[in-house]
């Protein structure tokens, strides 16, 4: 069946099986491989993307459920005008090692900061608790999000379109 959705600002239409998962649609159909497939059960969050500015686990979302909606993936965080403060925070605070959880983690973090520009450590920890990281022990991810919060004001000029909830 045909499904049409807006992905990172572009309208895309594809003929897909109704059972196709959104994560596979993004990765295999659109070749947006920044979104990762980690667990199948919504536990790990490596597949986190936004639908209509809300983070969802794309491994347990059907592609057709995103029909008519706006989908945003990690590839849109840096639209070519410079890194998003969240990306910069992850880089400067060493918030990533193998990089596999990073796209989902950053999509969750970006959502949090749009909703709450000045989250404390407990709020950040609770917010990212649906995203598992096996490398960092979370410490530097928390610092990365705090870095982004502290530097958000400097970067508003570079804010990508659709980034504010």
């Amino acid at each position, binding site marked *: 069946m045909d499904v049409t959705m807006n992905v990172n600002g572009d309208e895309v239409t594809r003929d897909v099986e109704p059972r196709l998962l959104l994560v596979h649609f993004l990765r295999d159909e659109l070749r947006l491989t920044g979104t990762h497939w*980690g*667990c199948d*059960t919504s536990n790990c969050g490596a597949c986190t993307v936004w639908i209509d500015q809300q983070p969802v686990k794309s491994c347990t979302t059907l592609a057709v459920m995103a029909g008519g909606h706006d989908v945003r993936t990690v590839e849109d965080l840096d639209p070519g005008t410079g890194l998003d403060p969240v990306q910069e925070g*992850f880089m*400067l605070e060493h918030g990533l*090692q193998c990089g596999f959880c990073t796209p989902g983690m950053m999509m969750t973090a970006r959502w949090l900061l749009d909703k709450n520009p000045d989250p404390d450590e407990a709020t950040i920890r609770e917010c990212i608790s649906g995203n*598992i990281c096996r490398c960092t022990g979370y*410490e530097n991810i928390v610092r990365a999000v705090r870095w982004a919060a502290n530097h958000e004001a400097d970067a508003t000029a570079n804010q990508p379109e659709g980034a504010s909830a």
Partner: protein
Amino acid sequence: MTVTEEAPLSPAGNPMGFGRMIRKEDARFLRGQGNYVDDVNLPGMLHGAILRSPYAHARIVSIDTSAAEAHPKVKAVITGKILETLKLAWMPTLSYDVQSVLCTDKVRFQGQEVAFVVAEDRYSARDALELIEVEYEPLPTVFDARHALDADAPIIRDDLDGRTDNKIYDWEAGDKAKCDEVFANAEVVVKQSMIYPRVHPAPLETCGSVASMDKVTGQLTVWTTTQAPHAHRTLYALVAGLPEHKIRIISPDIGGGFGNKVGIYPGYVCAVVGSILTGKPVKWMEDRSENLMSTSFARDYHMTGEIAATKDGKMLGLRVDVLADHGAFNGVAQPTKYPAGFFHLFTGSYDYPVAHCNVRAVYTNKAPGGVAYACSFRITEAAFLVERMVDCLAFELKMDPAELRMKNLLRPEQFPYTTPTGWEYDSGDYPRALKEAMRIAGYDELRREQAEKRAAGETMGIGISFFTEGVGAGPRKHMDILGLGMADGCELRIHPTGKAQLRISVQSQGQGHETTFAQIVSHELGIPPEDIEVIHGDTDNTPFGLGTYGSRSTPVSGAAAAVVARRIKDKAKIIAAAALECSVDDLEWEHGRWFVKGDHDKGQTIQESAFAAHGTLELPEGVEGHLDASVVYDPPNLTYPFGAYIAVVDVDMGTGHVKVRRFIAVDDCGPRINPMIVEGQVHGGLADGVGMALMEVMAFDENGNHLGGSFMDYLLPTSMECPSWELGETVTPSPHHPIGAKGVGESATVGSPAAIVNAVLDALQIRHAEMPLTPAVVWRAIQGNPLDRPDLAIE
């Protein structure tokens, strides 16, 4: 430049040597541009899927693949019978056993590989699995190692000639007679049994590969989740009889390894066979359930320790008995001479005059593996045992566990120290590390707080562990895997403009090799790290070596990088002398430049030497042009990093819930090349410790059914279970490593579980309870029944 001096900054603001440097590899990961195996997409690529056994032990009566073959999108269905015709139904393991690729006789664990389907897309491949009909005849199972040697236990490996039991090996180390004598005369003997449960490394990226056989050229290219691409290439050559020069293994970006990606899995072999049979590239990518149920697990050690001591707490001897559960095939990846890996280092950080250890390993109806999850070839199990035992002794003697450790830790003047089982620790100052951890923790203040809380009816615990790691395997004459010596090659090319490419034999699963190794070369040569490209993970473009696991990259390959850079420096000296028309003896080195002694302005930078080496400069007799070098580094010994950890926990006596309030980790891994990366490695390992101590266990029911086949059942620590880590350091360089570095990747995983368990037991004021200390286990311990765990099944 010495290792402790602060490095000058490069034009890009990076340290020209050691120091905090933002990682080079981050640029692609931050943008979703990493290239993991599942991101590889080749023209005409097909997809494979594996049919797995629902039984833990069952004879295969028949397999009917006709309906699957009739599926319009299926290109091939492969069974063990087909593999038999290719002599690939069985493959060697890394421990001189064999493992079934696709089952021909009987399945031996739940999740074992039975058939492989190749189809046009991944969904169709899975659909076709449903169409394969397999008739099984269930057999009795043995999944508890303690019953594997019972007289009536089913024989799991009847494929091996003459097998009448499930024993794999019986191995011992140390002097039993001397040890028994010490125990017979000791004032105090404390004995404790404990289980290090079966856990799983669970990297966030599962295992998989894309195999592409070019029928015209005979070239096989495999993109695969491997921590050891060169070893895999040789193994494919040995297993499949393919010519090694026609095999290229590419380990692209890897989403975490932790030992899960060292061995060769049946799915990798099936993808290769699938590509050979169909003439198309074939991708196989397992799902999470397959990863947890069939790939290399960790631990599963049933251990009994005994300490002999004086009444005032001087340790006199250590006796250990281990029952090791290796699963259905002996697939451990470790140096051949050490069947129980480096469990051999079981005396840990203490001055035991005598020690003895016996390890019996058995087959069970569970998945194979055993050496994984950042275990440093089973030092994790040894460190846990010895640190639990020390706390048991402290419990019985009513001594403070810090005081007891301080009394028995090896002293700085004992180094280099030879253990009772013959291993030589290179360097260490253990009391200094423990004191530093106690200082950061505010240990005395914590004990005061604990006393006040106890008086008020609240429960907090303080737990210590001190570990000694042995990493950097290893000296060729002692250490090999399947006959391949554990030395590592390294090549450095300085281009005419002074930019460099470093080719290393190890590869990264997130450790940041592209940054750290550039810093090593920068430290040696003064070339800015941004001008040094580190090439890894591709057998066609890197020298041979055994790969990244056992914290061996920095101790072995890092040493190779330093040594190859020194060769370049030596050659640059000859070139500079020729260019400056002076003797090499007249030259002196400063960071990045040779200059004439007494005439500082007269000199040549390494970049100028590089251009001269590629130019027309007349070189001395016997000196070749260009500025390249290669080495093979054979480490003279392991390096022995160590650390002191303190955990502070609060226990809810109503629910049994444990909250890790603080965790203090003082690590000594020698000089830190990039302190930011080192701290990140430690953070990750500490989270592993929280997981193993409190959450993680691969449980099985009485029929061998796996009860932890997804992340809904196999619990990993999240940001909520982890505290904000408090790190400290001491620096004791390795005397035999070119830059003194010791390796740190697994230290925290090795050292942290015991600290947390000790803290919980300290809170409850009981001697022992088994990991993982889930609320149910803790609650039961609170009720006075901590030891009664007849099996590991979750109630």
